[in-house]
């Protein structure tokens, strides 16, 4: 694959509180290629949120480097380009909407990028259509549901035409319905070639990714395809992390019935496996 979109090299970071340094991230290295869907999991205080804020230069490494599309986040002169490439959606739906009308909020980033008004309308249309919020364009944001607000926030990022979308626990304040709305949009964007980096608690979300990174105490301890990661259920349990419900079920069935494939992590995979095995039973008799 071509040049990586984001390169994190030996990144370390610490907060300074009352002159004592608190190390948050230690020697983290990974790369994200264009079009990848990466999920970062880890329990509270593992540093995953801090890591996500490094990716567009909101925080900069104490040592090591973060390189976005060739630009180092430490060089503040290219910060606007970096943030245009790597868009970020945050946890709280209410706290990231700036304007009093949906459409104007989407325009906010474009105004900052000095996009001419003629092109702006087109981009706003594109972004709102992509998240399915076109009919709400003239609404004030406080009449929207949490999931809708989050979709507006995503549209605000999409309008800037980034190559990568970082979701910093963007679904954690939403109900199941709102979460599914967002995941649908994210999956669609990923299918269209946008790289996604999602920081989350929800294992069902992690199961959809093409790659899962597990962080514990500021270090990467696992990095691989979700199928591989969720096989290590014992280790995840030690880290107080769950595995997707589908994976738990698959393992339970396997414990009773050896032939059942215990490495499955998606609901529909389980259905297929059950169908496959039941058909075999039928032919058996």
């Amino acid at each position, binding site marked *: 694959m071509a040049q990586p979109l984001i390169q994190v090299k030996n990144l370390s970071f610490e907060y300074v509180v009352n002159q004592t340094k608190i190390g948050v991230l230690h020697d983290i290295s990974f790369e994200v290629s264009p079009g990848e869907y990466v999920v970062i999991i880890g329990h509270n205080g593992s540093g995953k949120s801090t890591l996500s804020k490094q990716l567009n230069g909101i925080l900069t490494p104490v040592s090591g480097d973060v390189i976005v599309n060739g630009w180092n986040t430490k060089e503040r002169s290219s910060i606007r380009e970096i*943030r245009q490439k790597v868009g970020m959606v945050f*946890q709280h739906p209410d706290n990231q909407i700036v304007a*009093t009308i949906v459409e104007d909020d989407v325009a906010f980033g474009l*105004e*900052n990028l000095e996009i001419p008004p003629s092109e702006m309308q087109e981009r706003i249309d594109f972004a709102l259509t992509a998240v399915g919020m076109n009919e709400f364009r003239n609404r004030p944001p406080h009449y929207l549901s949490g999931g809708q607000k989050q979709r507006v*926030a995503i549209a605000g*990022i999409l309008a*800037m035409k980034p190559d990568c979308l970082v979701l910093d626990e963007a679904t954690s304040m939403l109900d199941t319905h709102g979460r599914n709305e967002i995941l649908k949009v994210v999956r669609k964007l990923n299918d269209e070639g946008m790289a996604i980096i999602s920081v989350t608690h929800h294992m069902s979300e992690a199961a959809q990714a093409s790659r899962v990174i597990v962080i514990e105490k500021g270090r990467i301890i696992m990095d691989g395809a979700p199928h591989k990661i969720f096989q290590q259920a014992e280790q995840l349990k030690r880290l107080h992390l769950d595995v997707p419900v589908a994976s738990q079920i698959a393992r339970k069935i396997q414990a009773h019935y050896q032939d059942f494939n215990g490495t499955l992590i998606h609901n529909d995979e389980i259905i297929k496996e059950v169908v496959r095995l039941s058909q075999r039973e039928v032919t058996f008799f």
Partner: protein
Amino acid sequence: MKKIAGFEFELTRNITIGQYVPTGSIIHRMDPRIKLASFTLLVISMAVCATYGGNLLALVLSCLLFYVSRIPISYGLSGVKPAIPFILILAILQLLFYSEVASGGKVLLNYGFIHITTDSIRLVVVSALRFVEIIFLSSVLTLSTSTTQITHGIESLLRPLRTVKFPVHEFALIITIALRFVPTFALEMEKMMKAQASRGAEFGTGAWWRIVQRTKDVFPIIIPLFNVAMSRAEDLVLAMESRCYVPGSQRSVSKKYKAYRTDYAALIFCIVFAIVLLAFPFPY
């Protein structure tokens, strides 16, 4: 007035700032810059005009504006209602203590320090009328203009101030964000009041004259609300920066407004009206 049970905490219903009544009238369709300028002119002239005749004319105009904008006048009246106590108190104070300022005209009553003249009566009536006119006018303005349009209007009207290094855009952005968060904080306050009330706190149960008591009631709300506001502000800064906002840097404007002939006609009408109010020798 008896409170309807269950609705005392529903603050968002009562907030009229930024309420927009889309009727699509001529006034709604006006260029926001010209609309703001015209309304400012009218308000200033009404605030200065001190004759009965002028103020009656202004009152008629402000009522007419409701008709033209096709907004029910009840909206305007509901704006006047909470102001009535202030208008009354002001009227009484002016009647009793303004005799030195308005000492002209015939003396109607002279008793101790109370000294009522035809001029002080005029002052009282005119101030009350002014109040109503200006509330009507600003209601029509805010009801017929979305907050975005108002902030865009303010921004472009203040643009000349850039030459003296006044941060016009930042100012407009501050107003936008403030307006944006009014309903959010109202909702937040509602939640806090409900949470506190469910743990036995009492709100608004003290009689209205026990001001100290009623102020104390509000503390358990105000302080957490302030705290929440700070953390929201922090989040907002991050979100704004992530969308390439750099304070003080160049930005482009998303909306272009174009003034039409009718807009200029309206502006000219307001200028003429203001001149009439200020310069015409009304007999009363």
